[in-house]
């Protein structure tokens, strides 16, 4: 009986940490050094073809569609809506070490190669079914929201004086309401709601302590607001949960997670829950941490460890695939890890497969 109990303990321990196994590396037929964006099934890949050249490689074709100075590089970002992609052209990557450098921001149709210039800034992001784009000017501290269809622009002036290298988090919850983060003169972070029509703002959440940062992510039915400390600062962590399915009462958030640990955060919202990087143990004197990715169920507050890498620092979602960049490699947490096969897939009758032909 005792032996059975011991065996059961080991089995249950194994189950609870079933996901805490060695994660598979991300394998594609393209070199990881050149990929800037790749779809969940690997059929569409935006790759850096050469110095200053961005190309699209799909099942049907390969085309170099964007060319800039040889010293430029690119960032390609998408969203869950999969209607548009943003390209940020970064000038003089290896010769200008400048955190205030402005990137040329272009938008194009998802899976296509027809970029159109949007503006100059950094930290660009798509919102609301890819109809809106936001970007930030780090010197002027201006957040710009632009409608990609009407081209109408709105600008919001941030304070952000305490940290010259501050980057705000932005999320548009409706076509006239945008949530963004800012820090005041004393170093307190806040989540602010701004109405584009009335041009009035309201503080949704203000951090009770200085030296924390607020993160945002959202799904169609909820918004998650994370508050995490910066490195070398003793603060706790929390994640707030705002259900948006029953109306947009931004003040009606609840606490989904609270901890005294100095978690890294980097929250990613999915249907399964909220992934974030949690500190499992820490040497406070030397600021050394053991960090893993965990999955939080916001409704129940249940947390499940998903990695056993001991040193996770970043989390990235790309077209539904969740990746962990670590030491130059990419590990796959969610989604298929091996998309290096070259087999053409047949067109399914339920989906309209677009033939990206340019006439």
């Amino acid at each position, binding site marked *: 009986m005792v032996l059975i109990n011991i065996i059961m303990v080991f089995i249950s321990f194994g189950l609870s940490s079933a996901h805490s196994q060695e994660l598979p590396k991300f394998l594609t037929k393209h070199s*990881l*050094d*050149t*990929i*800037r*964006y*790749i779809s969940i099934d690997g059929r569409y890949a935006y790759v*850096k073809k050469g110095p200053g050249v961005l190309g699209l490689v799909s099942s049907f074709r390969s085309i170099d569609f964007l060319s800039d100075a040889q*010293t430029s*590089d690119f*960032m*390609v*970002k998408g969203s869950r809506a999969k209607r548009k992609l943003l390209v*940020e052209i970064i000038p*003089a990557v*290896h*010769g*200008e*070490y*400048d*955190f*205030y*450098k402005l990137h040329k921001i272009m938008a194009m149709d998802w899976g296509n190669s027809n970029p159109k210039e949007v503006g100059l800034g950094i*930290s660009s992001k798509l919102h609301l079914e890819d109809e809106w784009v936001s970007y930030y000017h780090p*010197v002027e501290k201006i957040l710009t929201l632009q409608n990609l269809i009407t081209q109408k622009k709105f600008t919001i002036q941030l304070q952000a*004086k*305490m*940290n*010259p*290298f501050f*980057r705000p988090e932005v999320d548009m919850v409706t076509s006239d309401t945008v949530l963004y983060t800012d820090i005041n003169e*004393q*170093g307190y972070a806040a989540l602010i709601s701004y109405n584009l029509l009335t041009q009035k703002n309201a503080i949704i959440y203000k951090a009770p302590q*200085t*030296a924390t*940062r607020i993160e945002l992510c959202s799904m169609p039915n909820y918004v998650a607001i994370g508050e*995490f*400390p*910066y*490195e*070398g*600062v*003793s603060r706790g962590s929390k994640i707030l949960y705002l259900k948006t399915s029953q109306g947009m009462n931004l003040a009606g958030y609840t606490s989904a997670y609270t901890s005294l640990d100095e978690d890294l955060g*980097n929250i990613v919202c999915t249907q399964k829950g909220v992934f974030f990087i949690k500190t499992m143990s820490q*040497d406070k*004197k*030397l*600021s*050394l*941490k053991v960090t893993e990715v965990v999955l939080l169920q916001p409704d129940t507050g249940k947390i499940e460890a998903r990695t056993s890498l001991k*040193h996770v*620092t*970043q*989390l*990235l979602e*790309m077209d539904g695939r969740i990746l962990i*960049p670590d*030491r*130059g490699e*990419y590990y796959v947490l969610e989604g298929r890890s091996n998309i290096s096969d070259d087999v053409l897939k047949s067109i399914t009758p339920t989906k309209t497969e677009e033939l990206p032909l340019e006439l």
Partner: protein
Amino acid sequence: MKMWPPFLPSRYSKFLASTVLTAGLCFSFFASAQTVTTPNPTSANTLAPSNKPVISPITTPATVSYPGIIETFEKIITVDNDKFNNRSKDLTKNGRTFTDATAVTALDLEPDFLNSIILHSDPSYLKLASMAKCRFYDTILTDLLKSAEGKIKNVLVTYIDGKGNRQSSIMARKDFLTKVVNLECPETQKLINLFQVKYLDATMKDVPFEIPAGREQCQTVHLNWLTNPKTPFLCQIHEYLDQAKKGLGDPADLEQRKAVAKVLDQKITPVQKDYLQNICKHLDDEDLFCQEFLNVSFWNKISGGMEDKIYAQGICGYVMGASEPTDPQVRQCLARVNKESDLCLYPTAKNRGLTPQMNCESLSLALNYSSLRSNYLDCPAGSDQLALTNLSRLLLNFSRSEIKPFGGSCASISAGEAYEFNEKFDNDESWKLEACYDDTLNEKEVCQKIFFGSYLNNPASFTTVVATILKNMRGAETTTQCKMVSSKDFNPQILEFRTGCFIVYDPARCFMSQCKHKIYYNDRPIDFIKIKNRVTMDYFPTSLQGERFSQNYLLTHDYKKTGKSLSNVSNMVNYFKKSKGGLIHGVGCVEGLLPSFFKVQSFGQCTPTPFIIDGIIRENDKVVFVTRTAIDSLQAPRLVSWSNIFSAVRSYQRYHPLKLWTLYGID
């Protein structure tokens, strides 16, 4: 003539001598102190009926007297005192006074005299004495070593006389100096002169009171003190001042000694006194010596004057609400900083880098182990070319040259130093930022290389270039000089700004290679000067053809610094152990170095950021590095793990056109 005593007073000699003496004495005391009752001879060995002798058990003695450890040592000291006194009297009585060192051979100190020294002297000074023969003599002469008579007034020696007989003699201390020490150690007399009161100021200026940053450096510093011939004399001063202050020593001359101590006190700063107290007390214990530097709060060191108050100025400016806090304000602030760890997070805007900084406790630990020169401000938030910020930090650290007067943002210091470095090694062609104007007379465009701001009279300072253009184009006087003035300070209504040349810049929008500004000359705007290009520099080479023009190449080939690629923790640990004053520099993705500040938003994202590692903290098997990225304030390093550093450099390697590993030791 051999003078080195046969019994070397090594580190363990006191222990060994004490053990041997204690054992011997204990045995003798045991033998004499124990009282044992003699068993009744008639009862012992009584024959049992079986004819075997019956030996009765040993009975417990009625009284027992065993000496304890203290009593044992007291007796040892008493025995030694008696021995020494008797020997001295004996030698003096028999006329065995040493006169001529040249007529004898094998001159040594008597073993009993050496034992006496070991028994009565401070282990710290015994350690110093054991380093070299001349050090041993100096510690006798400076009264650091003691014998049974307290201060050594007489020296007991043995020698082989002209007839080949081993003799013993007593020698007055003065004679010991003139007849033995001056012959064997001529340096000693020079040192005695150097430490005369009239020459003490000059002597103290040459003494290096080095504050170590790190365990390895501390070990080197400690060893340097042990081998420094001036150490016995410095410790003599420390002991003299200490005794006078406490009223110890001979009461007859106490007042006189206090008067001398008062004079000496003025010639040594409080910082030097504390330092001397630490080293003289811990010459035999490197760990305790180092603890004063590495385990003490950095803020206490600033309070005590051991560290520059520039480290606290930004923090205290914010805490006290003053842009330039006064000394009393800084003291008040430092007292708070030790207790309230969050006060260090946000310094004043003057020299702001990436914020929040670490909390006061972590920052103190990092600064205790930091060795990068940080006694100036370089405004990383004002830099739009962090390669130059990082480069100038290295250059100013190695050169230790004075910071030249500058105008505009303090980022001009980095721009000026980097420009001069590139110009010196014929790489100014790579500097593309130019100020241009149309020379209508010659019908051509004239361009000159610039950096925004001014740095002494550097010809590429924007102020100097604008003045030259005004002289050429507007007939300005040859003595015309332009000044950088912040838009917050500029007021055209004031007479001061009505005449002359002023470059009015927006401090929030003025960086090294781009600057929102307006030029006024004699109250008129000047708008024909155009700025072209930007400062673009390869920190590490990005192409084979361009290798010669990268900053790292210039550092290692032209500036002649040794560069060594480091790829694992062991390399880095060994590098800090072996290198003196060396640093580690590199370029890595900031998303790996500082993940809580910068999130990865897209696949393959990497923001290359130069950084410098200038210290290492090891506890058991854990290692963390004292690191400054180019966006961190010079006075606010961070503790970064090897995982983060490796991740950042490895990610950058994948991103780099030549796949270079960009982490190098440089010394």
